[in-house]
């Protein structure tokens, strides 16, 4: 059985699909700690532009919207994402048409579920991301999402905070989006970025905590629902859930 080792980029993925498409029981993976069976033959994939483009063109020919589905699936923070995407591609090529609406097909169900997990998390972080004001007026927002969604939420904040410089930092993937009011760049980072906060930062965090307590209707507790909509793993950077965080 062939095992194609990937680096997590789209280019590498499509280069591998060129071969893997007809390689019936192969594995595609960018996982760091992949479990190998005895008969595994490891293939280190190289980026080959022409093969990559040919694959994409073929897919787009049958379903122009599929490439964006696949791009989203590849942002999943789970080890099987490449296999999900590969099977989805195989199905499109076999049908020579979009398969998105075949909602009772198990492969389609899986692909759409994985895609939706990414878009759901991106939607949630439009709300749950928290900025803190640095002493030079730059807003800094650390977060550690399950999926690689930095580039997905960035346009939203660029539209919203046009004149306001900010940094959004994915502390898990060690990368950050930097916006200075004119240009935007994505950069690799250390685990921690040290930021000095503005003198008002603490006051506003405090007011926000106060507000959070005051709007709650204490006679009607429903923690389960709160945690369902706002999973505990996201609380780390939210001042209202960390009264000590300053």
């Amino acid at each position, binding site marked *: 059985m062939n095992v194609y080792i990937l680096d997590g980029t789209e280019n590498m993925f499509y280069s591998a699909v060129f071969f893997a498409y007809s390689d019936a029981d192969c594995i595609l993976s960018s996982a760091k700690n992949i479990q190998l069976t005895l008969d595994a033959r490891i293939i280190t994939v190289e980026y080959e532009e022409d093969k990559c483009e040919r694959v994409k063109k073929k897919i787009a020919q049958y379903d122009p919207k599929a490439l964006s589905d696949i791009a989203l699936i590849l942002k999943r923070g789970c080890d099987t994402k490449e296999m999900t995407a590969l099977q989805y591609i195989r199905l499109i090529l076999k049908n020579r048409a979009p398969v998105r609406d075949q909602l009772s097909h198990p492969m389609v169900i899986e692909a759409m579920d994985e895609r939706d997990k990414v878009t759901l998390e991106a939607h949630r972080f439009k709300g749950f991301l928290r900025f803190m004001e640095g002493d030079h007026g730059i807003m800094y927002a650390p977060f550690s999402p399950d999926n690689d969604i930095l580039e997905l939420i960035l346009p939203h904040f660029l539209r919203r905070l*046009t004149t306001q410089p900010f940094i959004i930092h994915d502390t898990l993937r060690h990368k950050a989006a930097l916006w200075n009011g004119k240009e935007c760049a994505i950069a690799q980072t250390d685990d921690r970025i040290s930021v000095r906060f503005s003198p008002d930062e603490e006051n506003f965090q405090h007011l926000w905590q106060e507000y959070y307590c005051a709007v709650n209707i204490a006679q009607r507790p429903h923690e389960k629902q709160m945690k369902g909509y706002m999973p505990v793993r996201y609380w780390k950077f*939210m001042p209202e859930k960390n009264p000590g965080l300053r």
Partner: protein
Amino acid sequence: MIDANRLKILTESAKYDVSCSSSGSTRANRKGGIGNASIGGICHSFTPDGRCISLLKLLLSNRCIYNCLYCPNRAEADVPRASATPEEICELVLSFYKRNYIEGLFLSSAVDRSPDHTMELLIDTVIRLRKVYRFNGYIHLKGIPYADKALISRAARYVDRMSYNIELPSEHSLKLLAPQKSKESLLMPIRQLATEKFVFDQEKKGKHSTRFLPAGQTTQMIVGASPESDGQILRLSEAFYRKFSMKRVYYSSYVPVVHHALLPKKCTGLLREHRLYQADWLMRFYGFTADEIAGTSENLPEEYDPKCAWALKNMHLFPVEINSAPLEMLLRVPGIGNLGAYKILKARKFSSLGFEDLTKMRIVLKRAKHFITCNGKFFGSENISTVKTMLALEAHEEKYEQLSMFSTPETSVSALTGQL
């Protein structure tokens, strides 16, 4: 900067207003400005009662010259009083907004000194936000009854949504419990805004420079403080949707914060509120009329949701065949909602759907199975009283889950919206 104590007073007075939704408006950011309004609405946090925080919900003042019996801020009440200046509110909104705590502002006020005085302060606040701070985020303004007509239409040019709460479901109850507010004082501004918006949108077609309540109007009524039936309430809502193109009617189950001989001593159950939201959903999205849902003097059944109740009364229309039923009919099947119906429509184009296919598509069949066939096969019970019992048992399980779903974001498939 506003201090924590005043913020607390002004928030606590505003929090029972259930309308949290920030959806339904698109407002693009302008050059040099901050913020935009997002069409789907965004939840920024959830409180331990399970409700979504989307907007900073605040009173400008809780000092009131009126005496609505049910209101903790009425003139005679002995409660701590506070107010904030327009400038203080602007500072708070901007600081919260750029930290991404909130989607915008829901501003309201008690009637401080006079209706016009209060309305002027509210307008001052929103104009300052838009013009001085170039804030393009979402603003919902609650109107003050008896305020001057010109003030009302001025406000509508700066905010995304306005609401005049109708408060109680009948004129008689309003007279009794909110003696200073007349039916006309609430209905007039609603009618005025609906007419002005209609005219504005006609003239403005295609041009986007100025806007008039892009997210429309909403209203709210208290359920259970007065004796009106659900049937009456739903007819009133239906009229609001039809006559004034109201975007939403909110139902707020009565909580006794104030004791008075004319007021009930007990809370209205959240189940009643929930059933009303479900019925409201049927009217807005599934093409039901109030008449189909409940007779004028009837209340909605507690045992099962209003769609089940309607289906049980109309068994001659069922079962429907999943592979051929039109959308309108699929939507009338208990347990099948918008999303489910849409999935079925799409999937059945490719292959005919059996019972297992529906399960794979995660369409919940516990209720639906009594009302559908898949390729002619029926999996439910023929016996109507068995069906009734099973549906009631199921609703019973659901009840405890949803009883506490007092308010949830409009963005999710949820109980407050009453989606069925």
